């Protein structure tokens, strides 16, 4: 009986992370409602205008966020193994740093250079300790992505120094 009591008592404690997720969902439904109220409605479409579905969505999200909060207050829903593993913030920090570097450098430096920097940072975050090798791997990958993938698909990604350098090299060899 005592083990059952523990089973009853333990999950009753509110789970903070899940509570935050529920609050986030609640905030999201408020934003959806706010943006729905901002949709201008012409009287011509008063029957089923552009706001009917957004209202349904906002109401649905509100109900769901309350249900999530309810579940969070009753102990949350994370599986034990998920809770038992601590989050590797250091690793995540480098991945996020890589993503942000890419975001801010892709305009000024071009796709390849920005990608190489992201590649090295993400590799470091994942535990690779050979940045020079990663840089070369990243360069080969970014260039093949640029010349292979992007050109074949007809996608135009911003060219920077590296791309122009390689392009002119190819042109001078080719003709």
């Amino acid at each position: 009986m005592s083990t059952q009591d523990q089973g009853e008592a333990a999950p009753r404690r509110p789970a903070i992370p899940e509570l935050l997720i529920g609050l986030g969902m609640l905030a999201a439904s408020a934003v959806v409602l706010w943006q729905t109220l901002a949709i201008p409605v012409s009287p011509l479409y008063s029957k089923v205008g552009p706001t009917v579905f957004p209202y349904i969505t906002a109401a649905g999200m509100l109900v769901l966020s309350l249900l999530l909060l309810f579940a969070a207050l009753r102990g949350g829903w994370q599986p034990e193994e998920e809770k038992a593993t601590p989050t590797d913030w250091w690793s995540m920090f480098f991945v996020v740093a890589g993503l942000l570097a890419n975001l801010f450098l892709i305009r000024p430096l071009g796709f390849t250079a920005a990608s190489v920097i992201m590649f090295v940072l993400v590799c470091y975050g994942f535990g690779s300790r050979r940045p020079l090798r990663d840089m070369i791997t990243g360069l080969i990958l970014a260039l093949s992505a640029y010349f292979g993938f992007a050109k074949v698909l007809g996608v135009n990604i911003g060219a920077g120094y590296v791309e122009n350098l390689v392009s002119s090299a190819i042109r001078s060899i080719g003709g």
Partner: protein
Amino acid sequence: METLTYLAHGFTIAFSPTNLLWCLLGTTLGTAIGVLPGLGPALTIALLLPITYQVAPEASFILFAGIYYGAMYGGSTTSILLNTPGESATIVTALEGNRMARSGRGGAALATAAIGSFMAGTIGTLGIAFLAPVVVKFALAFGPAEYFSLMVLAFVTVSAVLGSSAVRGLSSLFIGFVIGMIGVDLQTGQPRFTFGVTELLDGVDVIIVAVGLFAVGETLYVASRRYAGKDEIVPLKGSLYMTAQEWARSWKAWIRGAFIGFPIGAMPAGGAEIPTFLSYALEKRLSKHKEEFGTVGAIEGVAGPEAANNASAAGVLVPMLTLGLPTSATAAIMLSAFQSYGINPGPLLLTTQANLVWGLIASLFIANVILIVLNLPLIGLWVKLLRIPAPQLYAGILVFATVGTYGISQSPIDLLILYLLGAIGFLMRRFDFPTAPAIIGMILGPLAEQQFRRAMTIANGDWTVFYKQPLSLTLLTLAAIGLIGPHVWNYVQSRRLKGQRAAPGDA
């Protein structure tokens, strides 16, 4: 027997040299991304969507279908050798397959998975060819109200019935709805959910959503879980040839798996997990070697679920081609490829786009033949892919994510949206929200809204139109049962088992 005539015509299209090449490319790429953890068919097809501006619809759909089928084959290799299911549908394959690999029978496990996939894929594709025209006959009678109700049913089954939690599945679906509504409303021209940002007027591209949720979100998740430890690759031992006894134990499981998988996949509910679990349970019950389950690995436990998985993947294409109803993330992205060509999948697709549909179905048969060659004699090649170290793999995925996103309009705003979605994807992955409903909600939500408004306009704003028509009423009732039924059932069970604790976790 006009199906056979159409199918013969389809083969003349699929056998053209260029289309064969597309099929070969798709199946090879599909196997590769299926093998690699962290990449899936939905993400890959999303990244390749720009190809729809370059080539004929037949070519890109043959490519996409090759990727779709190939990923199913490749996924089983990873499950068996690495015990990391690449996709939720191969969880069951990992159960027995990895145990077989550990006890030195990895070769036989891979063989039964590949041959079973071939058998089930072929049965499933035959199923598409013969079932699709039948569904079309029904679907022609559908009006906007019935379509809307059918979509509601699909929403409920995809997010609430299948999966661990109805609330979290529906949350994911509604997030998808919001993303799908961003942009200018097509009927009235009013901007919605744009927050005054001009870049959002065109809506959020499905590429960004898929890449954000699957690639960026997944990478962040894997990075955050590095303390969880790694799975070891089990070296491939033993011959790929199955013994007579292994054949005898496999073939019935393949057939049973295929006949469980295809109908479930073809229902407007989708989901490949349920049929694999059903097949596993069935094989376990019927097996004469029960002691091998969960110990050294039972070959039936690989053969059946693997067949069920592939047959249900084929089945998913039925509602998608005949009703325009995607029930998996990959199918939803394929639907957006149709939209990119200005084609609306629906009951008319089989007649107006006969070349495309029958060429595609024929190419699926060819894809299966190519895939069994790729995945048995050449298996050693794919095992090598598993040795790509995680740092370079995930960093590389992010490079391709950038190409796919930045290539849309060379706007850093797109990258910012990508990262925001990546953060949402990470939280969803971390807190066990399924991501597929978000993609389905984003693609299918606007279509549901369109049908809803069309039905309401025809009925002059009379809400009763949805429950006055018997078919529509039936579909909505089924949806309601799917939503409420399990809770009522749980309540009844918990009342009956009073004293014992009811199963926790359905948040």
